[in-house]
């Protein structure tokens, strides 16, 4: 078998070890104590004839019901970049949260989807969110204009008023960066932060080229030495 098995096994083991090393901090971080919930949990709001459910697993540090509003502190699901505080209320309807996530990519924002059962009203407040963003609301994938089915209060609470029973409602919050007309601004950052990616790429390319040149040099030297040894035999 001409394949260099040892090299293959070392490489495979290295990849596996590397993956475990990468994953270990995540495993540890997620092992922090908190109250877990899953789709079987019900958060009833008897005074408002409403109920809140989650169709996903997650944790929270604290949950309380006040004035018909369930408040979850440090809510964490697998799709949240960091824990969020979620206040949620359902009047004359059942709300099942199917997705709650945040993102910080070209644009920054959050995304919350839920199913509504019953013709009622729902309110939501997510915090903390980066300021200066815009909300988009869809009912079953159709975009709904503000005040045509939902309203936004100054404190950031979204009240959905006209979601049909059985509909899938999505609340999306986007903060556009400066170049896209938003608030992101990197002009005040130090040079190395503004250009961190190209610096990292430059370092990676330099190391790669240097290593490749070194390997080529050593390889050619070894070849020459071998040729000399063979010629002496």
């Amino acid at each position, binding site marked *: 078998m001409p394949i260099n098995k040892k090299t293959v096994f070392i490489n495979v083991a290295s990849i596996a070890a590397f993956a475990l090393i990468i994953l270990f901090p995540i495993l540890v971080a*997620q092992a922090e104590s908190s109250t877990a919930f899953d789709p079987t949990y019900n958060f009833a709001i008897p005074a408002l004839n409403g109920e809140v459910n989650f169709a996903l697993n997650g944790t929270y540090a604290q949950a309380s019901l006040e004035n018909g509003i369930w408040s979850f502190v440090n809510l964490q699901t697998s799709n949240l*970049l960091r824990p969020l505080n979620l206040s949620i209320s359902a009047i004359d309807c059942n709300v099942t949260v199917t997705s709650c*996530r945040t993102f910080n990519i070209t644009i920054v924002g959050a995304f919350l*989807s839920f199913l509504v059962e019953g013709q009622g009203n729902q309110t939501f407040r997510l915090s903390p969110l980066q300021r200066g963003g815009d909300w988009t609301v869809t009912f079953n994938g159709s975009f709904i204009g503000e005040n045509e089915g939902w309203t936004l209060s100054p404190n950031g609470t979204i009240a959905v008023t006209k979601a049909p029973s059985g509909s899938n409602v999505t609340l*999306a919050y986007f903060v556009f960066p400066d*170049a896209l007309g938003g608030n992101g601004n990197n002009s005040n950052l130090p040079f190395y932060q503004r250009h961190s990616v190209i610096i990292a790429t430059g370092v990676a390319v330099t190391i790669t080229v240097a290593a490749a040149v070194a390997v080529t040099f050593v390889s050619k030297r070894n070849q020459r030495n071998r040729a000399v040894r063979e010629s002496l035999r």
Partner: protein
Amino acid sequence: MTWENPVVLTMLVYVAVVAVGIFLILKLSKNKTRKISTLRLFIQVAAVVAVFMGLVIGPFDQPLWMPLGPAPRDNLVGGQFFGSQFPDGLSVPILACYYPSGRTVTCAIWQLQAYIFPFWNYSRGYSVLYSTSGLEKIAIVVGSLVAMSIVLGRFFCGWLCPFGLYMDVMTRIRKALGKRHLSFSEKTNTALGQLRYIIIAVFLILSVIFASYAIAGIQLIPGTRPGGPQGTEAGLVGTLNEPFCLVCPVRPLCVLIECGLGFMKWSYVSQIAYGPLYISGFYVTSLNLAILIVVTVLALAYRRVWCRICPLGGLTALFSTFTPFKQVALTKLQKNESNCTKCGVCKRVCPTQVTAMYEQKGGDVTVSGCMLCFRCVEMCPEKEALRIEFAGKSVFKSRNWLDTPKTND
């Protein structure tokens, strides 16, 4: 609790399955002329799963497309691990389409075009805080390509590219039908190899023309002045940006597969054709759909037909098989002329009809058309006539798989 995290669990399972799979194939595969091919197929499938991994992690309860908004791709492993640093994905020399690959990795051709037009002046690609300089973003893409090409060269094409796997599947279908492959003449094959550089040049020049206003303040094509409601979309920008992607066969293939798997709404693909290039729904044009069909039919007859003209393969070759990169490339196909009996098996089994390993006199015979699939090395019946070298070390050598009895002269 920890193990309930689907991303972490999936990653662990993935790594374990790939490691065990490689081990089992190397250990159990008895057919000496198929062992590496089997391993390659397994790694191709594993690579496709890795590239598209975001699609199998979910959640999938969101509409795929929101205006400038998040999609399932934002929940990918790549997004989870790289965070905001690589939202447009790490540039890779494989046809990993931007959306389906969930930005974990992204086709470098897309990035090269997109960062010229329409994102020359926009903080697109590497987080909100990333520089808005188009040149800087392009330098990062080219830098990544150079580094990866020096290390692995066109190994990416042979072992990791999803469309390469599609080409190989077509070949297997042809074999299953008992049909023999067709071959291009050497002249045609050479011309196809040169065509990919023309394709690269055409689409980059087109991108620069579209971006003329952003780059130089001169609008060469009406409707290419950036503006619009979100600051990037106006006129032709929305339909003609990234021109190669409008004809690339991989894009509709990704969309169709996603629809088939239920990750994308069929309504986006099945809308009535409209607009320039008859853009049909989201992500498909009549042109790239037609090209996909043509390439698929040709792939049933010719092995790896697309790979011969693939501009991305051409870029990878540019940075690994041409001077000065060739001198320092780490993955090479080496020939030992003294062990070669000129039987011609190597050039017959080469899926892209490369003949350098047959014709050249020895030494480094890696040429731009070679995808480093190792098939010639696997099939060469002469011990150590061909070998794959990585960083100066032999990782795979040809051997006498015919097992002819040894004779003492």
